[in-house]
């Protein structure tokens, strides 16, 4: 794990590939060789996993893979292991290459939009496209670094990233990248391919988490409800994944069929009316209702009956996930790309001015990315959601003066029976765009060339190169535009006693203050009815009081009959 030990790649690292004048000056400087300690936090690790031990995942498998002669090796590489896997699991490869984990492409059945990491722009590192050398570390395959990757070659499937049960398997970028990022992956113990291959089993939380906990460029950065605290969560953090309780693996809910995993956020089932289904029926969704039914509260109390009335309009997550990022890992809520590119002595650097709940200091500035703000243990944003998102893609023209551009605008309305009130993490970003064409841009961040932003720190060149690579029109002039993105919240389900109290919404200062189209008792008082009503009651009291005073006055003055 120590990035500063001397690995075999030290020779390459000894030559700092810095560009521009500063780079040249450094080149002449006698001292920048790798013998010298890098300045503090110049490394650009986004994922430091200290806890390597796998989580406990009870297996009911009828096969012990350590006894298989096909897995005795020797293996020199991942693809060799994959070939051994596919020799027995003859259909797995055919199935897997259709999955989102492999294609990174999703044509939305309703909107027809082409989604998936292969093409989308997000509000974090903005685009994987063109930066696969780095980003495709989280592709479940081997060697995707540019457009030459063969998506039909099943031997390039990475079975181990999901099925390794030793905890020792890891992935590195598929291309070396620039010097400013190259200190990330030194010092790792070589993978013991035979041991890893023989360990395979159903994925534990750390397998899925190796990518999904670190989306957006770091632990907990992207989602707010997915971070490394879910590897071994206490009951209060997640009642289902509780290590001392149910200890669910991700796949307990995200059931799969032929390696197609349910529960993608590209097509959310926002209102599942199917419930649990009949006995023996296969669950084909990752919804709460698929286990808990469509009337999940005990109908033995008024509260239970009323709560069952609520499920029609309110997603389970809205009440049962009271706050997000509450495992001690903060989530990013604000990213400003404008400040990216500052250097100290010609070197990129980090500032770690945020201390998150678990005591770790996280970066509030990175030369390669800009400035960040975090939040943790906070109430999410709420909105009507029918499961559909509308994405601002590379070819969407927007009006930069019309407020924050929603990278993924969620769809839903109070009058739509398919919509419910859902929680989201809202991410706010200021990111580069094409000022002439009013579109988003692809940035060339990762590469060994002088155009890569992570090395050259030049937006103009990085954007021009990123756009040119895919033949996308670029006006040549970039600016910065405010964007926002919305991440449906569904993990970190609290125990029922910690669910959001009724009054959190049913009060003047309501959690769902912005939700329209529905009468919320307690929130929607006020207006002339209550003014008039209270005035009438007040005047009645006043009248009665006056009447009483007059009687008292009269009685003193006159004789009582």
């Amino acid at each position, binding site marked *: 794990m120590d990035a500063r030990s001397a690995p075999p790649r030290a020779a390459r690292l000894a030559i700092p590939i810095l560009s521009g004048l500063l780079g040249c000056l450094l080149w002449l400087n006698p001292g920048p060789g790798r013998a010298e300690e890098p300045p503090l936090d110049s490394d650009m690790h986004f994922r430091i996993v200290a806890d390597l031990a796998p989580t406990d995942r009870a297996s009911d498998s009828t096969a012990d893979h350590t006894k298989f002669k096909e897995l005795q090796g020797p293996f020199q590489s991942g693809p060799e292991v994959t070939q051994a896997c596919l020799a027995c699991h003859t259909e797995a490869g055919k199935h897997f290459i259709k999955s989102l984990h492999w294609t990174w492409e999703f044509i939305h059945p309703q909107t027809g939009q082409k989604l998936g990491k292969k093409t989308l722009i997000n509000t974090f590192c903005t685009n994987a496209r063109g930066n696969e050398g780095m980003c495709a570390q989280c592709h479940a395959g081997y060697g995707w670094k540019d457009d030459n990757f063969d998506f039909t070659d099943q031997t390039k499937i990475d079975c181990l990233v999901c099925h390794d049960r030793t905890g020792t398997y890891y992935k590195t970028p598929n291309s070396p990248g620039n010097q400013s990022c190259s200190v990330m992956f030194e010092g790792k113990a070589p993978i013991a391919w035979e041991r890893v291959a023989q360990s395979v089993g159903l994925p534990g939380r750390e397998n899925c988490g190796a990518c999904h906990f670190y989306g957006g460029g770091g632990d907990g950065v992207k989602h707010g409800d997915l971070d490394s605290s879910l590897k071994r969560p206490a009951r209060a953090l997640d009642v289902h994944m509780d290590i001392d309780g149910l200890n669910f693996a991700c796949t307990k809910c995200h059931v799969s069929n032929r390696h197609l995993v349910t529960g993608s956020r590209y097509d959310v089932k926002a209102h599942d009316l199917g419930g649990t289904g009949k006995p023996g029926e296969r669950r084909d969704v990752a919804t709460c209702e698929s286990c808990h039914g469509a009337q999940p509260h005990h109908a033995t109390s008024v509260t239970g009956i009323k709560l069952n009335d609520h499920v029609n309009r309110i997603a389970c997550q809205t009440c049962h996930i009271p706050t997000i990022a509450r495992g001690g890992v903060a989530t990013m809520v604000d990213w400003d790309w404008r400040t990216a590119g500052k250097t100290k002595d010609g070197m990129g650097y980090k500032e770690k001015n945020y201390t998150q709940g678990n005591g770790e200091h996280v970066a509030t500035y990175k030369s390669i990315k800009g400035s960040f703000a975090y939040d943790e243990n906070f109430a999410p944003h709420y909105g009507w959601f029918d499961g559909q998102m509308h994405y601002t893609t590379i070819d969407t023209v927007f009006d930069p003066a019309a407020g924050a551009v929603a990278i993924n605008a969620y769809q839903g309305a109070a009058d739509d*029976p398919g919509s419910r009130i859902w929680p989201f993490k809202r991410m706010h970003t200021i990111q580069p765009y094409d000022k002439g064409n009013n579109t988003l841009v692809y940035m060339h961040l990762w590469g060994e060339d002088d155009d890569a932003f992570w090395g050259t720190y030049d937006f103009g060149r990085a954007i021009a190169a990123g756009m040119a690579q895919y033949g996308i029109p670029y006006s040549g002039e970039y600016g910065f535009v405010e964007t926002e993105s919305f991440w449906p919240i569904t993990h970190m389900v609290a125990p029922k006693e910690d669910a959001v109290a009724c009054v959190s919404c049913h009060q003047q200062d309501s959690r769902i203050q912005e939700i329209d189209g529905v009468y919320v008792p307690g929130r929607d008082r006020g207006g002339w009815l209550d003014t008039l009503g209270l005035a009438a*009651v007040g005047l009645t009291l006043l009248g*009665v009081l006056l009447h009483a005073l007059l009687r008292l006055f*009269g009685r003193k003055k006159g004789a009582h*009959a």
Partner: protein
Amino acid sequence: MSTRTVMVYRRFERLWHWTQMSCILVLLFTGFAIRGLHRLIDFDTAVTWHTGAALVLLGVWLFAVFWLFTTGEWRHYLPTTQGLGKVIRYYAYGIFQGESHPYHKALLRKHNPLQAIAYGVLKLVLFPAIWVSGIVYLLYGLWQGLALGTGWLGGVAFIHVAAAYAILAFVIIHVYLLTTGHSLREHLMPMVTGWDQVDLMPEEEAYLLKDEPGRIR
């Protein structure tokens, strides 16, 4: 004509009255909590008690309506203008001069004309408004699918809350008027014991003495 002590509020009526009073107090307190006017109890506790008290009251009302119509007691609430002017004049003027109440209870008219009109409005307008809107509200789960994104629930709540304010105003005046006699006790006790002073026609007196001796002292 003679004034006798007669059982005017029989056991069921007294039970009805005090159950209704308790329920209405609970309903007002919890209802205003639900509306968001105070936070002296939890929202879910308020909803639970509000629903429970409402169901008890609806049950009591079912019995009361049945009782009113089978016994003919409903005639006490028929509006009349006879003597109305005198009663209004009394509350607006005479009471301050120390005059006596111009109305005397009769066997078939145990309420004064103003009372009869007030209770009639309460029973025919305010109570139906609040229980009809309340039941519709309570059964929201059954019709919410037809009213998505509409203001219907808000409208139901509007009627319900408006009626609640009116009932609260009634309660204030109702309780205040208890103090307008010789003593609070004089107005309160008939609803506790059932006995009150009633002007009886000789025929009524003879009837009671002969056929319902337990109702007359």
